[in-house]
């Protein structure tokens, strides 16, 4: 169907769209399509959510202090690794 074809075409713009870097023209076209295509709306929302979830987790990934100390030691910079900088 015509609509399905349209969806496929738009998938290639989704990444730029969620980044806010899509050209104005394509953006308008996509948003117009989203108004009456529930499936694409779900895909856009879950795509955004996917990226959100990834970014939320990022803050929890800090280097453990023992790993950092061993790194300083390995680099012969052990005297700098002892103090925990806040």
């Amino acid at each position: 169907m015509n609509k399905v074809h349209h969806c496929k075409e738009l998938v290639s713009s989704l990444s730029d769209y969620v980044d806010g870097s899509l050209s104005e023209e394509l953006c308008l076209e996509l948003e117009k399509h989203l108004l009456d295509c529930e499936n694409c709306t779900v895909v856009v929302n879950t795509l955004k959510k996917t990226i959100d979830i990834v970014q939320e987790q990022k803050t929890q990934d800090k280097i453990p202090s023992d790993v950092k100390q061993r790194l300083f030691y390995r680099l012969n910079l052990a005297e700098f690794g002892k103090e925990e900088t806040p």
Partner: protein
Amino acid sequence: MSEEQNFDEPLNIEALKTGDRHELAKMVELYSDQVYRVALKMLNNPSDAEDVLQETFIKAMRAIKNFQERSTISTWLYRIAVNESLMFLRKQKPEAVVIEEEPQNNEDQDYSAIQVVDWCCLPEKEFLSSESRAHLNEAIQNLPAKFRSVFILRDIEGLSIRETAEALNLTETNVKTRLLRARMRLREDLTQYYGERMAEVKNE
């Protein structure tokens, strides 16, 4: 304590190049988090990530003399970290790298497989559980390495398309294509996972 005094100031590249220990320590202090994160996401194994972390800084300290200021130290370290991770993977499972070389799927095939389940409405705690986090890490790990590296730099580390292209020696168009594919695959994976969770939550 005196070692911490000027860690807030930008790195002095000239001092780094002459091997100034304080400046090198500052580089490690400033960038070890990001290098470790990249290695961990590339390899999904803390002990392997630590190896890559150490190798990255050893290489960086050796190569700093030749650092061309065309990119930032940060981008340069990302590049070394990704390369070291890829090298590690190649050594560990050479067969995985061979798969990377296969021709890409035809795009239509990718897109016709799109699952449509609106799992955004799940309670927020679902996304924060440790099980959910472990699944996400696994899903990232399952991305082909060439998509994974782009995804990590752009969506986890927050580099711009241009910086990602610089760090990985790719064109910006190439970065965008890989990013789209990585994001769509990950979305697909999470849709599968959270789609099942939605059914379970309903029955709980």
